[in-house]
């Protein structure tokens, strides 16, 4: 079973995503801030990382940057959730090395499509 790390400081979002991933057949690792997320990535080596843009301690892009700067971790696909426009999303991808972004609020189907794409390709 593929493992997905989800980091978001909003517990309701975590709850909803946990419900969806269970249905879709993925194991979800949870983190409520950037530090937890980074520790979990290093320790548990998930198959995919889904980061909220704004988080306490480390923000999503900082976590992303650290992952992408670490030769052992850089192959893990990272998707960043943000309410920002596409323009900003492009910048996030270029500047921090994120593999993809998804605009909040998103439809569950759209998320599933992106996850499936990276997990199958990876």
């Amino acid at each position, binding site marked *: 079973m593929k493992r997905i790390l989800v980091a978001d400081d909003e517990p309701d979002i975590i709850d909803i995503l946990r*419900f969806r991933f269970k249905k879709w057949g993925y194991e979800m690792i949870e983190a409520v801030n950037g530090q937890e997320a980074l520790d979990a990535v290093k320790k548990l080596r998930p198959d995919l990382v889904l980061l909220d843009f704004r988080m306490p301690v480390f923000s999503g892009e900082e976590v992303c940057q650290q992952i992408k700067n670490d030769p052992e971790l850089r192959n893990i696909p990272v998707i960043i959730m943000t*309410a920002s426009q596409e*323009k900003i999303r492009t910048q996030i991808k270029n500047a921090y090395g994120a593999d993809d972004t998804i605009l909040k*609020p998103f439809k*569950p189907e759209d998320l599933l499509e992106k996850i499936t794409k990276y997990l199958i390709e990876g």
Partner: protein
Amino acid sequence: MKIKSSFFSTGVLPFFIFILSIGITLFGWHSSLKNLEHRKHVRFESRVQDISARIRERAGVYIDALYGARGLFAASNSVEAGEWRAYVAQLQMEKRYPGIFALGYIQKISRKEKEAAVEDIRSNAGFREAGYPEFKIYPEQEKSEYYPITFVEPSLPGNMIFGYDLSTSESLSQVLMKSAESNAPHISGKIHFPQPEMKEADIFIAMPVYKHDSKIDTVEGRKQALEGFVIAIIEPRLLFSKILNFSRRDWRIDFEIYDRQVMKDEHLLYDNDSVLDSVHNTNASFSVTLPVTILDRTFALHATGDPDFGSNDSVGNQLPLYVLFGGFVFSWFLYFFLNVLIFGRAKAEKYAEEKHQDLIKEIAERRAAEESLWRSNEMRNAIIHGANFSIISTDVNGLIQTFNATAEKMLGYSAKEMVGRSTPEVIHVAEEVANRARSLSRELGREIKPGFEVFVAKPKLGKPDEQDWTYVRKDGVRFPVRLSVTPLKDNRGEITGFLGIAGDLSETRKAQAELLAYKTALDHHASVAVTDKAGVIIYANDRFCEVSKYARHELIGKTHQIVNSGYHPVSFFTDMWDTILSGLVWQGEICNRSKDGTLYWMETTITPIKDLNGEITHFVAVRTDITELRQSRERVEMALKGGDLGLWDWNIQTGDIFFNERLTSMLGYGLGEMAPRIEAWEKLVHPEDKPRVKEILRQHLSGETINCETEHRLLKKNGEWIWVLNKGKTLEWDKEGKPLRAVGTHLDITEKKNAEQKIQEAAKAKSDFTSMVSHELRTPLMVIQESIGIVHDGSAGPINADQLSFLDKAKKNVERLARLINNVLDYQKLDAGKSIFQKKIDSLNDITREVVNDYHEVAIKRGLEIDLFLCEDMPKVMLDRDKIIQVLANYLNNAIKFSKEGKIFVSTGHEGNTVKVSVTDNGPGIREEDQDKLFSSFSQLGEANERKTGGTGLGLVISKQIIEAHGGKVGVESSFGKGATFYFILPIVERRISQEKS
């Protein structure tokens, strides 16, 4: 020999004959001796006479020098010490006039004038260069007139001779009076001047000087007109030693000169003791006393010759001896012929003596004449060439005798050409001469013919003749001169010719013309008034009359009180009077009242005029009317004040800048506290604004902009910043087109700027708030949406029909809320210009097809059909694909929402430089009056409809913003109840390129 021997041979009285022969021989010897004596005597006398002639001749030279000196006074109104000195210096007296110790001037001073004259001489630098503070008239005597010496050149140490009143001695006084009355030089007797350098007795020759233009044809007139005398002080020792030195080596004569014909010691002027020991040497063989008359005085010349006088005349002196010894040897022979011989010899000697005397006389005369000629030439050259006047002398008939260097220069003729020609011939204008002839004829009561007589008619009568004439130069150029003609007289007072002295008046005339031009210009421009010391108007020019509206006679004799307007306080005028009475120039603006009561403003300059003593005698007031200037100045001031504008006036090339009071006060400075320099102002410009202000200024000064306008901050004196609207304009340029002067204003816009800033801040706060709220809404909205979704799709367990129905409602409204939030965010971004457009050349046909495809399914679900008509040669245009999709989707969404059934038409096309996409529905249509509102923000048409269709009311507004950001246009065509066509038009920016690519 034969005859003689026959006598002897007769033997008659040889002894007697011998004795007789001896006697005859002795007699012959004696008479020969006597004859020799006589000859010597004659020669002696002739020589003494020669000396006397020399003395007279020299006196004549001195008199000529005095005439020259008097000419100086005639040519100039007042002779000053410097001129006198220059004149005397150029005479080179020592060389040319040996014997003249000094040339002086005696001034006639009446008792009344005595104090003032003495003071003047003591203090007046102009008259006497450094002045002569010790000057006094002495010996002191109470007299009606004083005749002190006031000039002496060369000056003597201590100048003790100054102030010496010559009229205190009766004899000297007589000499002066005779001279003054006769208008002729007179010579004095022996006088001792009170000057240590003048140990010896002197004499002087005095020449009267009269006032200009005075009538001196009568004795009384001459007495009245007498101004003083020029005197030549002569030291006899110098004079005679020079004359006698001439042939002293072979002349052994003792001379004594007495100032009378009485040979008393007290009258002895000169004695050349050096030759003989005793003055009255009675042993001397020869002695002669000759009267020497110089002018009106007869001197006695007493000469004594020594016994050896003439001893070196060898033939004459040896003759008696020959007679004596020859007589003894050839007694017979002598006897026979002696009487004949003596007689013949006496006759021959007499003849020879006569001839000899004639010859001596002739030689002496010729020598004297030559000497005289040489001396007078020297003198003439000195005067003539030293003068800056044209000097032309003529004989009595008008034939030119001399033509001086200045005349040559002035008239262009050489002296060679002119001497011998008659005047006025070529150098005068005939017409002028004729005119003068007419007026002279009237004046003198007899006909004066045009010609030389015109010039000399008056001088012949002893009247001065000074006239302005026009001289004609050789090249034809005419110029004005002032010519004065004086008769030249010989010692007997006979007129021998005339002297014409002319000064070039061109410069004077030019100066006069200039003065007139100034006066005209001044009169034209300014009001001029002259008042006496008390302020009484004695002159008013036309302009003054014009401005004050008073007639001249109404102003003259009044004070300026007549134009007093009462505007100024009394202190204003007391200040003015204090200034001008202290001798200073006063300047100011005075408000006057004219005769008709109107007020006018005059910029006034009052200058005190002083006399020679520094006493104020008059005031001259020059005024210009500045009434209009003041009015316009006031208007400008009022305009500036009303507009609250600070004014600056900048001289770009010097950097000087004028700030008005409002401008400095705007910056918290007092008037004059800010340095009037552009650098000082530049320092006050906010550092952040400086580059921008400089650039704007540069653009303006280089001519890129006509006006210069910018808003920037300036530092106040108290350290605060103010915002100013700075407007300026260049008004003057130099020849090369460089800006010279710019004028502009500052308006304090700090409040406006602050308000603007607040508005901007508020707008930003609003925008930030909207953005923040919208973002913050998204997370809870997503949670709600997802939670409902999970329950609604049964993932969280089965639900019944009622539950599903309510969850449907919840889901629909949450989606609507999400759309609303997205639209608000979009709108706000577009409105704030934060939206970024990424435009590329793209195909509208492709985009339209894509969007229609997306909505195809939705339309079918609602029972609608979408018909798509794509233009085949649709040009590509620059567009942001995502944004245009948003617009088109909005149009289609609306069309589907508002259409109940039937078809929706979507078409593309192009016209001119534009492309167009239209979406036509068959919905209810839109009322014409509502069509304009459709695209304005937050309009909600048919709220019921809106709610039913779930729109946000922002779609069309956002569409409009997007299309307008592409430079395009949105619009709607509709008639109520018959559907509507929404369209947008985009410009084809580069059609040619677009077509190639399509």
